C-alpha cells in the first residue's frame, strides 16, 4: 500500500507539473507577457524593478518557469507586501520537513494498521493536524505578490481557500446525502412512478448548466420570494452579513445557512443527479446478484438484507464517482462563487484571469490541481477500505 500511495503521489506530481507548465506557457502568450502587462499598471511602477529581478521577468520562458517553480515550493515565514525575499533555506524549510515527516509517519501507520477503518481515521486526524499547522504556525510559500497590487498571493489565496472549501464540501455532502438514498430508493422501487420521475429529473439536471440553476435559485428563492411574500429566507450574495461577530450562536448558524444554502444547492444539484443515477444502477446490479439470493435463502429479514448485504456492495462504485466529481465541483464553485459573490478562490480566479494576474492565476490553478490529486488518492484508499478484493501493488 505504501508503494502504491507513493506511485500515485508521483503520478500526481507529474500531472501537477504538466498543469503548471501548460498554464504558465499559456499565460505568457497573453499581451506580450508579464513584464509588458506589469508596465501597463501604474500602481505597480515602484515594484517593477524588484519583481523583474526576483522573478526573472526579462529572462526566457523556461528560466522564468524554473524561477516560478522554485519560489512556489519555497516556504517562508513572513509575507510582507514584497512577497518572501528569502529563497529556499534550510531554516525556513524546517516546518515543511516536519510536515513531510508527519505525512510519512501517517502513511506508515496506515500501512501497518490492519484495520482499514482505523487507518482511514488516522489519516483524517493527520489531515486536520496539517491544516492546523498551516493555520497556526503561519507557514507560507513564496507565491509572489499580485501584479494588480492586491498584496502577497499566499495571503490572498489562503484567506479564501476556507470559503471555497466550505462551499464545495457542503455541496458534495448535500449531493451524497440526497443522491445516494434517492438512487437506492429508486432501485428498490424500480419502474415505480417515483423512479420514473427521478430518472426524468436527473436527465433535466444533467442538461442544465450550473449557472442557469444558480441564477434561477437566486432570483426565485431569494429575490422573488422576498418580493412576493416579504420573507427574507436567503441572501443573494456573500458568506455572512456584516456584524456576524456580534450575533448570538444561533443567529450565526442561521446567518451562515441563509448564505450557504443556495450556492451549495446550485453546485450540488447536478452532482446529485449523477449520484442518484449511478447509485440506482449499482444497487440494481447488487439486488440481482447471487449473494443477495444467498442472503435471502439464509432467512435474513429484508431490512437486514438491504442494509447489510446490498448497500455495502452498492456503495463501492460511488467512491470512484466522488473522485471524478471533485473537479466538477471545483468548476461549479468557480461559476457559483461569481454569481453569489462568494469570497472564495473561485471568484478570485475569475477576477485574476480578467486582469491576467499571473501569480494569482498560477497559484489558484495549482491549488485546484493539488486538491484534485489529493482527493483522487483519498478515494483510491477509500475504495480499498470498502472492497476487500482490492489489493494495492
Amino acid at each position, binding site marked *: 500500500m505504501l508503494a502504491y500511495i507513493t506511485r500515485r503521489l508521483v*503520478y500526481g506530481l*507529474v*500531472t501537477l507539473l*504538466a*498543469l503548471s507548465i*501548460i*498554464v504558465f506557457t*499559456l*499565460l505568457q*502568450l*497573453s*499581451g506580450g507577457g508579464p513584464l509588458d502587462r506589469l508596465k501597463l499598471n501604474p500602481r505597480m511602477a515602484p515594484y517593477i524593478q524588484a519583481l523583474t529581478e526576483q522573478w526573472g521577468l526579462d529572462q526566457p520562458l523556461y528560466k522564468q518557469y524554473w524561477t516560478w517553480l522554485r519560489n512556489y515550493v519555497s516556504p517562508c515565514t513572513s509575507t510582507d507586501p514584497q512577497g518572501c525575499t528569502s529563497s529556499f533555506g534550510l531554516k525556513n524549510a524546517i516546518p515543511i520537513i516536519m510536515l513531510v515527516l508527519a505525512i510519512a509517519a501517517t502513511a506508515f501507520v496506515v500501512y501497518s494498521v490492519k484495520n482499514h477503518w482505523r487507518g482511514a481515521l488516522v489519516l483524517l486526524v493527520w489531515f486536520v493536524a496539517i491544516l492546523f499547522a498551516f493555520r497556526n504556525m503561519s507557514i507560507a510559500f513564496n507565491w509572489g505578490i499580485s501584479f494588480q497590487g492586491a498584496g502577497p498571493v499566499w495571503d490572498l489565496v489562503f484567506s479564501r481557500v476556507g470559503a471555497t472549501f466550505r462551499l464545495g464540501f457542503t455541496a458534495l455532502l448535500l449531493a451524497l446525502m440526497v443522491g445516494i438514498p434517492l438512487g437506492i430508493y429508486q432501485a428498490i422501487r*424500480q*419502474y415505480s412512478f417515483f423512479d*420514473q420521475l427521478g430518472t426524468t429529473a436527473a*436527465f*433535466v439536471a*444533467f*442538461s*442544465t*448548466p*450550473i*449557472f*442557469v440553476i444558480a*441564477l*434561477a435559485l*437566486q*432570483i426565485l428563492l431569494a*429575490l422573488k420570494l422576498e418580493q412576493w411574500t416579504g420573507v427574507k429566507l436567503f441572501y443573494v450574495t456573500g458568506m455572512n452579513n456584516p456584524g456576524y461577530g456580534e450575533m448570538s450562536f444561533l443567529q450565526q448558524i442561521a446567518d451562515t445557512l441563509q448564505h450557504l444554502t443556495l450556492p451549495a444547492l446550485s453546485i450540488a444539484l447536478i452532482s446529485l443527479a449523477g449520484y442518484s*443515477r*449511478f447509485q*440506482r*444502477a449499482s444497487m*440494481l446490479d447488487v439486488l*440481482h446478484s447471487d449473494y443477495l*439470493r444467498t442472503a435471502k435463502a439464509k432467512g435474513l429479514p429484508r431490512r437486514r438484507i438491504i442494509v447489510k448485504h446490498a448497500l455495502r456492495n452498492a456503495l463501492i462504485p460511488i467512491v470512484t464517482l466522488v473522485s471524478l466529481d471533485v*473537479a466538477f465541483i*471545483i*468548476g461549479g464553485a*468557480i*461559476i457559483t462563487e*461569481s*454569481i453569489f459573490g462568494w469570497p472564495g478562490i473561485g471568484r478570485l*480566479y*475569475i477576477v485574476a*484571469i*480578467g486582469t*491576467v494576474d499571473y501569480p494569482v*492565476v498560477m497559484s*489558484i*490553478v495549482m491549488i*485546484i*490541481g493539488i486538491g*484534485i*490529486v489529493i482527493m483522487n488518492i483519498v478515494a483510491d484508499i477509500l475504495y480499498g477500505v470498502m472492497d476487500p478484493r482490492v489489493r494495492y501493488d
Partner: protein
Amino acid sequence: MTDIEYNLESEEPELALEAEGLSVEPITQWDLFSARLRRHRLAMLSALFLALLVVLVLIAPLLPLHPPTERLLDESGRSLVNIAPRPGLWFGTDELGRDVLSRIIYGGRASLIVGLTAGILVALFGTLVGSLAGYYPGSVDQALMRFTDLWLGLPLLPVAIVVGRILPEIAFLPGWLKQGPFGIALLIGFLSWGSLARIVRAEFLSLREKEFVEAARAAGAPDRRIVFRHILPNAMSPIIVTTTLVVGSAIIIEAALSFLGFGVPPPTPTWGGMVSEGGRLAARGFWWELVFSGAALVATVLAINFFGDGLRDALDPTQTIERK
C-alpha cells in the same frame, strides 16, 4: 429471481428459445420495453427538435428578423430598451434594445458550431488515440494512456477559462480562431477527447481478442484491413454515443465560458452571454432574456442527451435502459 435457469444451460439458448418462441422474461421486461419505446419516442422528438434548430440557425438571415446586433427604435426615434414580449417582438428586447428572439437564433449558431466542431474533433482524435493504444499493446499503449491520463487529470474548467481569456491575445493565431466560435470549439475539443480515447481503447482491447479478428489475422489480412473492416465497425456504437454526449457537454462548457466572459466575445450573440446579461436584468424584473436564453440552452442540451440515450438503446439492443 429474474433470471431463472432457462437460458443458462442449453448449448444454443437463443436458437432454442427462438425456435420455440419460448420466453421466460418476467413482467418487468414489459415495463422495460415500453420505457424503451417511450424513450425512443422522446429521442425521435429530440432529433426533430435538433433538426429544426439546425435549419433555423442556417436560414436565419432569410428569416424576417431584426439583425441580432441592431438596436431597435420606435417611430419617434426612442430606443426600445427592455421591452417585454409582445406581438412583433415575441421574446422582447434586451437592455440595448436588441431583439431577443433574433439573438437567440443567431446565438444558436455559436452553440451548434462549438458543439459539432468539438464533437467531430473528439471523435477523430479520441478514436485515433484510443485505437492506436488498443491495437498496439505494450509501449505504444503505455505511452498513449499515460498521456491520456495526464490530460484527463487537468481540471477542465479552470484551464478552459485561461485559454478562453488568452485566445484573443495570441499573436500568431489567425483572426477566425481568435474571435469566433471555432477557437472555443478547438479548445473544448482538445480538452475533452480523453474519455473517448479510453472507451475506444477498451473496445479495441476486447475486440482484438475476438475469434473473427483472429480469423482475419490468420487469413493474412493486413493491420489496416483488420482495423477498418473488423474492429472499428464493431466499436462504432460507443464512439457515436460518447460523441453525442460530448456535443452536449461542449455546448454547456461554451455557454459557461461565454457566461463568465471568456467565450465568444460580444457583440456576437451567445446563449451563455445572454443568460449572464439576462440574469442581471431579471433581478430588475426584466425576466424574458434570461428565461428564453436559458430555455434554449437547456432544451438543446436535453434534446442532445435524449437523442444520445435513444441511440444507445437503438445501437445496443442487449443493453437495458440503465445509464451507467
